């Protein structure tokens, strides 16, 4: 039995507007990171994999099942939408039970699963709270619990850490890693740090296209020789930002240490080649594929 998600030449339109172009991707077991800026098409791709959207053409199979068989696909995928929400008047455990029923889990088993998952995502003490009374982090944990309910082979989580505080974010990432054993977990994010610590394989998307795919190490390797640091006097900073892609800045007393991406050695005094970090490597990847990223992320 096939355990991969295979996407071949997939296109997707919203009306006349093309949203995804010729997507070609193989996703294997373990954590898979889908990186891209806001509006890159990550959500569209993930919804298509979860059989919530219909593609126009191309082939998509999830563990051997073509994505057109929506019912089968839904039976084996768990999906956590970008802004997960649940009927606000339901209690936390009721909401899980309800979603379990929608997933077709028989009553006895459902009860057991709900208990287990509440425990796992640390919501047991909040189980009597109504959904609308949960904090952002708790809600997101409820979200991952519901995605795990029917023990799916594939879990798709869309921007799960956006808006969480650092502590919640780390807890959430660890939780995802835990569940990624013998499953496919696809995580989409625009935050590089989420991918860095958890995913082996990643793909980078922009404007509906896959720009790059491979491992984290390959991405770092790819950027080698293009990341520099330099100490810049403050009055030149705005010019530097115009000319280079600045991926990091540390302000000192009378100068600023910047980390920047450049194709060739920059024409700056004291510019030093450095080991790429993932964020810079990601920016380089976007840049080398012709995306406009200047002006930097400040």
């Amino acid at each position, binding site marked *: 039995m096939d355990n991969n998600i295979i996407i071949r030449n997939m296109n997707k339109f919203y009306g006349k507007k093309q949203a995804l172009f010729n997507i070609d991707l193989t996703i294997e077991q373990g954590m898979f990171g889908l990186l891209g800026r806001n509006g890159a098409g990550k959500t569209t791709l993930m919804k298509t994999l979860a059989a919530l959207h219909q593609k126009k053409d191309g082939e998509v199979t999830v563990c051997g099942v073509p994505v057109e068989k929506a019912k089968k696909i839904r039976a084996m995928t768990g999906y956590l939408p970008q802004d997960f929400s649940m009927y*606000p*008047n339901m209690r936390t455990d009721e909401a899980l039970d309800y979603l379990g029923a929608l997933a077709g889990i028989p009553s006895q088993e459902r009860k057991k699963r709900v208990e287990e998952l509440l425990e796992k995502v640390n919501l047991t003490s909040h189980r009597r709270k*109504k959904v*609308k*009374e949960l904090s952002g982090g708790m809600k997101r944990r409820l979200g991952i619990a519901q995605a795990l309910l029917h023990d799916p082979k594939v879990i798709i989580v869309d921007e799960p850490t956006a808006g969480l505080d650092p502590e919640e974010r780390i807890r959430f990432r660890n939780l995802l890693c835990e569940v990624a054993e013998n499953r496919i977990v696809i995580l989409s994010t625009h935050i590089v740090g989420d991918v860095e610590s958890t995913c082996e394989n990643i793909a980078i998307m922009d404007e509906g296209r896959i720009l790059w795919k491979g491992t984290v190490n390959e991405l770092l390797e790819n950027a080698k020789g293009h990341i520099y640091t330099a100490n810049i006097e403050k009055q030149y900073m705005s010019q530097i930002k115009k000319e280079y892609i600045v991926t990091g800045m540390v302000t000192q007393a009378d100068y600023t240490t910047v980390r920047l991406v450049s194709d060739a050695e920059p024409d700056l005094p004291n510019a030093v080649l450095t080991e790429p970090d993932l964020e810079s490597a990601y920016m380089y990847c976007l840049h080398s594929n012709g995306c406009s990223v200047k002006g930097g992320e400040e």
Partner: protein
Amino acid sequence: MLFRLECKKIVRSAAFLIYCVISVLFIATNYYSDCKGGVYFGEGTKIVEDHELIMYGALNSLMGEYAANKYVCYPFGYYKAVHLKEKDQQKIAGYLREMTGTDEKEFEELLSTGEKYYVGMSDKPVYGFHDVRMTEGFSYDRFLEIMTDTDDMLGGGSDYAPDSLLALYSGVDMTDEELKEEYRAFIEDDKVTGGLARLFCDYVGIDLAILPVFVAAWLTSADRKRRMHELVYTRKISSAKLVFTRYAALVFTMFIPVVLEMIVALIQAVVEYNGESLDMTAMFTLPTFWLLPNLLFTTAAGVLITEVFSAPAAIFAQVVIWFKATITASRMLSGKIGRFDLVCRHNSPTDRSAFLMNHDNFIFSRIFWTVISLVLVVLAVYAYDAKRGGRFNGIRLFGKGGLLRRKA
């Protein structure tokens, strides 16, 4: 600037589109079709306010209803048969004896002269009286006192309410002379459009007392639904400016279809009355003065209730207000406008004199509802400002801390 953006937002919404469609449908099926081929002057009744006629009609009717102890009322605009308790029946009998000037024995005799018949499958008889006379020289004021008390006993909406007395018992068919005079007044005094404008307002006033609430509720709840409210809350703009701008945008955009309908009505009048000298402005001035308060109030109530409670609550409240103001209002569709009527009715292109008789009340009601509307908007500003500052989160009817929360 903000005003233009808000207008754009409203005009592009589904709620506004449907507002336009329903508004046009309503006016087309009522007014435009009524006025096709011109106004018909072949027959008509008029209310003469002849006290003798009224007392005679009401007395005979009350005799019949008393005899059967079945009083037909329309408390909410719908038929409802009221049966009185023995004590109240005694009181009615007392009134009847007083009006007919009979003692108990004579009254019994009088009662037995009623014509007895059965209606439908009911096995209970009803009685008809046709020639019972009031005692000579009975004062009309005393008669009105009795009728008012009787109507109260019956729970309102009976044939004996002062309004109904006029409409039911003192209408007489118009003579040819009178019809001619009506026609002359329509053409010469009202210059056609003046009369048509009243009929136009009668119909449009009905839908302006309900339709705007949907658009208002939609716009007011849109921010929250799109999770925009916090973004808007933190902007510099003052609550008063924001709420008033949105209110103005709602009123402005929703009045556009009404103006277009006025133009079409004027064109229709020009076509139908080709050759008469028409007043070209009357189709705009009177409807604006008549209808704007309806729109102002319905929108203001919608905005305020949505802000304080929720969109469905606003819709529900307005449905009740509308029901009260139209369906269950007085049975007189023309010739009677109260000082506090939200929906002024005058369901006739003619009858100019009756309208003028109520002119003071009409002016009063229009100003009254305009002022009320502005008060409601000011309240909405306060509610919005309090929500914005986190001092107030709206009143919830259900759910945690809700007024109507079910006991767990």
